């Protein structure tokens, strides 16, 4: 079987994969290198470690009320993730488990709404928040994304693999519906929840456009907004920006590595 053609194919595959892996990882490497150099060295494209890391961290922490900014980001992403998972998985569960005449029509309508871009909702949502007197609050950031159609869809797909006998057995044992959801469904769907956690947490943590619109005072700003502000202007201090980027990337990176195993499993369940 090992003809020269196959050998060339294999070599090409490894080359392409290595190149892709290099290109994928290089910006991370650059972020880390950049954060240790002075801005002048970074702009010149110096690609070895420097000794300006502490100075850069100091400047970064002096650029805004950082404890407050970190708290805002963690609070919004944390509460947002828990609420989104709860509400959207409940909806996904409901769609698959309860039969009603309008189920498929309703679900089709939901999927259609998936294609309405955020840009179309931005202005009415903005005015809605202003009328509800919620501008510049945590609620204004979190509420619009709590019911995520994508996650509802994802949970419904995954729930198709959930054994109905398990639910029936639980009913016979006299469990209430909410108990079944809490004690039977949620533990069984652990890997689905893990994969969804990554996706949902990332979307809350990285959210940029909506907070940019809704948050107005500095004490409410989230990490991405601060990093973005630092990077604008004519001659931003990129070394300091890199420090901010690392802080903005670290939490999602950690969550990904913690949940990686379940993540692939969870995706598997959803695309069946």
């Amino acid at each position, binding site marked *: 079987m090992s003809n020269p053609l196959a050998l060339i194919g294999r070599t090409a595959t490894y080359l392409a*994969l290595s190149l892709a892996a290099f290109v994928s990882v290089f910006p991370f490497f650059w972020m880390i290198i950049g954060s240790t150099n002075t801005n002048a060295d970074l702009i010149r494209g110096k690609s070895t470690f420097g000794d300006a890391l502490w100075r850069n961290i100091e400047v970064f922490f002096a650029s805004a009320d950082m404890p407050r900014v970190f708290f805002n980001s963690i609070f919004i992403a944390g509460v947002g993730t828990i609420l989104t998972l709860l509400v959207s998985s409940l909806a996904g569960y409901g769609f698959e488990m309860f039969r009603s005449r309008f189920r498929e029509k309703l679900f089709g309508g939901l999927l259609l709404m998936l294609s309405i871009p955020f840009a179309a909702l931005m202005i009415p949502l903005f005015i809605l928040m202003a009328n509800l007197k919620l501008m510049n609050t945590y609620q204004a950031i979190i509420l619009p994304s709590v019911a995520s159609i994508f996650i509802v869809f994802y949970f419904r797909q995954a729930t198709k693999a959930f054994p109905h006998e398990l639910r029936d057995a639980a009913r016979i044992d006299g469990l209430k519906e909410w108990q079944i959801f809490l004690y039977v469904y949620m533990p069984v769907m652990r890997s689905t929840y893990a994969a969804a956690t990554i996706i949902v947490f990332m979307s809350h943590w990285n959210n940029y456009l909506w907070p940019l619109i809704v948050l107005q005072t500095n004490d409410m700003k989230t990490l991405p907004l601060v990093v973005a502000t630092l990077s604008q202007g004519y001659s931003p201090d990129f070394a300091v920006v890199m420090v901010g980027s690392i802080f903005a990337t670290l939490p999602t990176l950690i969550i990904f590595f913690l949940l990686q195993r379940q993540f692939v499993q969870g995706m598997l369940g959803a695309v069946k």
Partner: protein
Amino acid sequence: MPALVLLGIFMIYPIIWSLWMSFQVGRGMQFSFGGLTNIIRLTQDPIFIRALTNTLIFLAVQVPIMLVLALLFANALNNPNIWGRGIFRTAIFLPCVTSLVAYSVTFKSMFASDGVINQMLLGLHVISSPIPWLADPFWAKVVVISAITWRWTGYNMIFYLAAMQNIDKSIYEAAKIDGVPAWARFWYITVPMLKPVILFTAVISTIGTLQLFDEPNLLTSGGPSDSTLTLSMYIYNLSFRFMPSFGYAATVSYVIVVLVAILSFLQFLAARDRRA
């Protein structure tokens, strides 16, 4: 039920509201009914045409490149004989766990006129003088496209990998015994089996690209001379940066809705045709 209520408040209500608003004219919070005024204004607005063209260019170039790359990588990494699968998979997936802001600013520093990308290309003698990446209309588009491709290829790859693991291995074994070469196994077995997932990623990527905002806003702020301005950025500028003109902005946003609807429909048609 709570999900439906929330969706009702935060999706359906704004959708209807913005449809109504797209027929309003006026500045700030003062509206009056303007009929088709906004739609006529669209056709005569050079900035809108610019933003629309840019967005469609991004879509036409970036989505096919990204999906083909994702499919090829997924296929290579699905082969159990490839050494280091886990490492490659993690490396290629890694970009999608970065924050949009973080990677945009990192790219901005890498593509500075005397930044690391130019240094590397000069060092490898690919180019003889530095490319003004972010100051040239053409190269600025290239940077935006590379940035999005970098960020999202691994994301799509994971969908394909997951779907590939659901394909029955015995089909491949049978084909192998029949002497079907690897590329043909990929083209005639893998691709058709993945059709629903490919359609799904195509629709999701189309929607994502039509809404592009974060990357061009952070990398180039839409410049130079509006060459990377997207529809979403234009809507944002119309509503929140200049004198607010919500009605007209809502009209522009409905252009995106209509585009998404048309393109998704075409993609469904294409997928159905090939199956028949």
